[in-house]
């Protein structure tokens, strides 16, 4: 019973936060609401005995990703009005289709097919059961291939991000002290010997 109460409280907070994320005008507020949503879902995961996921969610998403988001949002001056252009125009149709799809999904994935009769409630694990250990055991055996591919994807993401954003700027002027020290006289001046020029060129010009 207490579990149910906790679930609904957090679920309500999560839905509220989710709605706020896409409706508030201020981008920083929006990001903060997302953090709230993440926290609430982490709590729900804890209820489902998925401690590892819950903690990872908080660590990775809240601790790293959202902080990065906030930095970006604060550094870039995002124009909120422009973001919503076209939103209104497509809203009615989009809403209609979304509602339609949602309705169909509920019909399909609802209790009728995924109810407790077909999918009985899992038996709670013992207190010494480690979620992390279980995940680790399959991650490096059964799902090794997928895991490695995922790692490659992350590598590609890094390569892509760097190649798209890094500019090697050739025009920047920097000093190289070692060259300044090592400079010789011959590098700077050149002595040329030449015959003296007649004066008439200058006279013609004047």
């Amino acid at each position, binding site marked *: 019973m207490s579990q149910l109460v906790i679930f609904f409280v957090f679920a309500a907070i999560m839905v509220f936060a989710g709605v706020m994320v896409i409706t508030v005008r201020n981008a920083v507020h929006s990001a903060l609401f997302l953090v709230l949503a993440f926290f609430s879902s982490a709590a729900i995961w804890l209820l489902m005995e998925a401690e590892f996921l819950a903690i990872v969610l908080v660590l990775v998403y809240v601790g790293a990703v959202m902080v990065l988001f906030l930095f970006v949002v604060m550094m870039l001056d995002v124009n909120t009005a422009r973001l919503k252009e076209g939103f209104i125009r497509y809203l009615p149709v989009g809403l209609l289709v979304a509602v339609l799809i949602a309705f*169909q*999904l509920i019909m*399909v*994935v609802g209790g009728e*097919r*995924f109810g407790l009769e077909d999918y009985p409630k899992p038996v709670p694990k013992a207190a010494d059961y480690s979620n992390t250990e279980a995940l680790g055991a399959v991650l490096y*055996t*059964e*799902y*090794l*291939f*997928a895991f490695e*591919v*995922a790692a*490659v*994807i992350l*590598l*590609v*993401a890094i*390569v*892509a991000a760097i*190649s*798209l954003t890094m500019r090697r700027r050739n025009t920047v002027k920097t000093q190289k002290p070692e060259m300044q020290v090592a400079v010789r006289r011959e590098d700077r001046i050149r002595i040329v010997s030449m015959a003296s020029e007649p004066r008439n060129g200058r006279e013609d010009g004047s």
Partner: protein
Amino acid sequence: MTDFVAITPELFLLTMACVVLIVDAFLPEAYRAVTYQLALMTLVITGGLTVALYPAEPQVVFHGAAVVDGMGSVLKAFIAGIAFFAFTYSKDYLRERNVFKGEYYVLGLFAVLGMMIMVSAHSLLTIYLGLELLSLCLYAMVAMHRDSADASEAAMKYFVLGALASGMLLYGISMIYGGTGTVDLGEIAAVVASGDIVDDTVLVFGLVFLVVGLAFKLGAVPFHMWLPDVYHGAPTAVTLFIGSAPKMAAFAMVMRVLVDGLEGLQADWQAMLVILSILSMAVGNVIAIAQTNLKRMFAYSTIAHVGFLILGVLSGTEAGYAASMFYAIVYAIMSLGGFGMIVLLSRGGFEADRLEDFKGLNERSPWFAFIMMVFLFSMAGVPPFVGFWAKWSVLREVVAADMVWLAVVAVVFSIIGAFYYLRVVKLMYFDKPEDASPITAGGDLQAAVSINGLAVLGLGLFPGALLTLCVAALAAS
């Protein structure tokens, strides 16, 4: 073969991609060609390894994550080969636009890896990961020419819509998982075939999401909207990469998901594919007529070809799948050549992607006018070029599956399609060139395009070997 031996080509490719990445980082600008040569060498060896490890019978490895079989091996070898040519075509083009960077080749190699993973996937999870690996590389490659606003816009659209499609695909996968309790394609097929599922609503819904995701990746109407904009906006060197090998990977993905996994639901996906196919052939061929830009025209022609490609799959027979596989390979070769010709004619900062740029090509270079004509005739499906055999074998299977009306529709649309191909031929042979300068492309590029054209001609004269190979490959998978 142990599991690791079975995926030697992929392991080698991954290792070499990392090596190329590191080597490139330490190379001075002047030695950039080393990266390029390393990448080419990698592809050759990868293709060779794939051929050398051609399996006698399918072998499922890594707890059902991947499978090494005939279809996969043949497609992988062709993917490596096509990528080899795509790299060759791109060298001069990139150099002239100051984007001759190691990243293009590193990302290209990773994209090839992604395709190979998709092709030999035996689990929905692997398919998804391979697809993401491929897509991520492609997004970045499209955006690589940063000075071009077109390219940035194209990359943005590609990314957003690609993410949408990936979402659909994932959602579909989750529903299939919900319905069957597994992501392993073999087990899914077993569960579907066992008849334990009384109510397959969830499966069918998941199937719809999957088909939408697949159709997006293939570029079938109405999920094709990204394709013209991306093909047009991306640098041609990237377009020819996107437009060739990934089509084979997408075909393999369709085969893995729909045939290997969900063949039991054939009645459901067949009807959807029929509609996708007709819409693609109609929209692709008709809109291509109105295009004045060759890249855009080829983009719409791709959509039309995808319609044809689907025909073989939807016929639902082994022979039909073989015909589609033949089509995918042939299409990749032709499309590579078509875009390659644009690269060949481009020089300096100038893009030869307008129809006018091909005017009077015969006077400038009779040989390349002939090669281009081979590509165009082949795409239009004129015998004796290989495109004819591709269309013909697919149509034969559609007729064999008692869908004569569909074959008639396909023929009508391909006749409409012939118009815009032949228009280019007319421009090349009967119009005066706007710019009579001779072709200045490098020797390697000229040789590669010539080989590509002769391959289309040669395969058209002797289609038997490749057709037989496709049939044999599918029989061994």
